[in-house]
């Protein structure tokens, strides 16, 4: 992350943003159905879940970690929250339960990586299975259906003319941005991801901050789980499979580095929307969903290649 300097903007840094604009403009021209309120709202709703998870993933990746278990955590959080609603708890409490449930697993991930000193890729590959398994056991493999109708507002509601989830996304994005750029926690996340030895020798409590970052990531995933549950109006124990890869892809397309020390909230938002638009645009243009997957895969490689080239030059 570059401090915001006068002249600190360069053309290549803006490339993901430019791609998003071009994609947007291109789709507006190519298909009449793209630039409609219904379609744009639907893109926002579809992207919001991945986007909110990706915000947490941004912090984790900046701190030099990774979390492969977010898909499972999403299902666990959604299930816990909807189960609370089923028991007659108010919606606010249900959502809070989902967030805390997600946070718990993020905390466990952080604890395992820092205490056992095992590579986070392995730790979260393990918890990916563990959390999914527990979710299926708790739910007995069955979705939670008995949810108050008003809960659908979270994922499908409209506030001020735009989907309610957009507001949630903006608040989360703003909070994560401020956390990363203007608080000790965020700056330490960059320092730890940038050079863990330097962070340790500077007297930074590395384990504490690493765990915090994973826990925040988990909390955001729990929230995403509740939004997903609200959109489906069920608590699905099988929800979120494969979402971890989409969240990681969003961070990476947005300039995050899997080696740690780099990444931005704005970049991640752009990354997530690029993927959302590609998939929405392909649908509208009638491109086969099979080919869509290949296109998105190619875009990930392209984006990272361009970013690497930029970095190598400086």
């Amino acid at each position: 992350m570059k401090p915001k300097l006068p002249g600190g903007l360069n053309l290549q840094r803006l490339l993901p943003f430019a791609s998003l604009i071009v994609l947007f403009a291109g789709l507006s021209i190519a298909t009449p159905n793209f630039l409609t309120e219904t379609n744009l709202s639907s893109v926002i709703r579809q992207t919001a879940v991945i986007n909110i998870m990706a915000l947490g993933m941004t912090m984790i990746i900046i701190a030099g970690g990774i979390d492969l278990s977010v898909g499972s955590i999403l299902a666990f959080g959604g299930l816990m929250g909807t189960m609370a609603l089923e028991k007659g708890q108010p919606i606010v409490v249900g959502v809070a339960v989902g967030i805390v449930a997600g946070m718990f697993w993020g905390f466990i991930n952080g604890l395992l990586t820092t205490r056992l000193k095992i590579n986070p890729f392995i730790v979260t590959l393990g918890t990916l299975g563990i959390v999914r398994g527990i979710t299926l056991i708790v739910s007995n493999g069955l979705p939670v259906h008995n949810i108050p109708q008003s809960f659908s507002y979270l994922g499908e509601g409209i506030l001020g003319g735009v989907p309610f989830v957009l507001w949630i996304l903006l608040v989360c994005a703003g909070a994560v941005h401020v956390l990363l750029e203007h608080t000790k926690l965020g700056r330490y996340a960059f320092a730890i991801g940038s050079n863990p030895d330097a962070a340790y020798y500077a007297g930074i409590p590395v384990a504490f901050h690493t765990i915090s970052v994973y826990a925040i990531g988990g909390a955001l995933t729990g929230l995403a789980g509740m939004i997903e549950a609200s959109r489906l109006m069920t608590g699905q124990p099988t929800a979120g499979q494969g979402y971890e890869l989409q969240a990681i892809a969003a961070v990476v397309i947005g300039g995050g580095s899997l080696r740690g020390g780099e990444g931005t909230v704005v970049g991640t938002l752009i990354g997530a929307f690029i993927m959302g638009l590609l998939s929405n645009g392909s649908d509208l243009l009638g491109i086969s969903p099979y080919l869509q997957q290949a296109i998105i895969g190619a875009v990930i490689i392209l984006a990272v290649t361009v970013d690497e080239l930029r970095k190598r030059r400086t």
Partner: protein
Amino acid sequence: MLLRLKGIEKRFGGLTALRNGNLTVNAGEVHLLMGENGAGKSTLMKIVAGLLQPDGGTFEWKGQPVAFSRPADAAALGIAMVHQESLLAPHLSVAENIFLGREQSFWVKRREVVARAAKLIEEHRFPLNAEWRVDRLSPAGKQLVEICRAISQGSSLLIFDEPTSSLSDAETAEVFKIVRTLKARGMGVIYITHRLDELRSVGDQVTVLRDGATVHTSPMAELTTDQLIRHMVGRELSALYARTPVAPGEVVLSIDQLCVPPLLKKISLNVRAGEIVGLAGLVGAGRTELCRAIFGVDRCASGRILINGKEQRLRSPQDAAAAGIALIPEDRQRTGLATARPIGENTNLASLDKVSRYGLVDQAAADRVTTDFIARLRIRAESPQQRAGRLSGGNQQKVVIAKWLARGARVFLFDEPTRGIDVGAKAEVFEVMDELARQGAAILMVSSELPELLQIADRILVMRAGVLTGELARGATQEQVMRLAAFHDARPEAAQAGSAA
């Protein structure tokens, strides 16, 4: 008086790094810490900075006994270290790195941090900008950031661990100027270096370490360079390593005007069959780089490498291995062995073609090769299936040698072959080298252990800052080698490496 160390001891497993470290540093004094590679200078300084804990001895700071368990403890009392390899977060700004770990509140006011850093930089007139990202800085710039860090912590003792080894002359001058300023402000400075010639102007006191013990302490002015070298190397040579006399044969390896940017310049040398040529020099002189270049790891800009009189195009280790060159690397564990795999797989790794038919490995043939080498090189292993990483250092080294013998290599590049192995295993490694020489191999051996090199090598080439500074015949003294390695006068190319970026 700031610091007093008495009888400091430090062991790593069975290895004694320090047995009697003594050092006294006063405020307003630049104290040079000298010694050969491995004498214990860095270990002693790491203890002072709280990176290592001593196993014995007394450590007093401003008259009080202290014990540090973490670097932050030392920093809190005003001891800071400028590391050889910079310990900075490359993605953060200069300002953030200066104050890293010392943020006061949860909220970080970036502008304030930058302003404070800018003020500090201004005060000392450092050529830095508080907002620059650290990964864009030159090595000298990174050291300045570490110096700023130390000053901002209110440190009263600053340790420099070979700060100029990666700096250009201009940058070195800059660092010296800063050291003088710090001294004038009443700070104590400990300066580890090999480049004494440049330091007479800054150094007040000097302490010499040898084999983990302080052997001399005096004001710098009272000591001649000759005396200093004698203190550094003055030990008896052990008569452990004998060579079988071999009449050298034809030139096998010939290097002609080899240049490998950024360090190596116009290296020319010959190694004959049956000859062991020693390559001496200080850390950073370019000895490892030369081995890497011959082995095709680093690309040569100009010059020629000939094997048996034929020019070779060595663009990869694959080419080098095909040309009959073997590298026994310095870092055995990382680049010499597949430590998680059995000995048998390691010995056959470079020569699988020889034991394969139609692309399938003939396991029986491969096992025969392994058993043969285990017997020939006296590798002490439980079985050929034992994991290579579980062997002792000396036996690991033999497995690496076996790998290349199996391939039929004729030119052997040994990079620090005895590092980290005990005396008995050293003697065995030398026996193997001696036998290779007898069988007509050409051997180039890099070693920082001068006594060993003097005994095992038929002649010694000395490098300094990427150039060959001289050749010494068998029977040379350590003083002669040290003079060429460290105090060579004509050094126009001095360490231009690292001045880029």
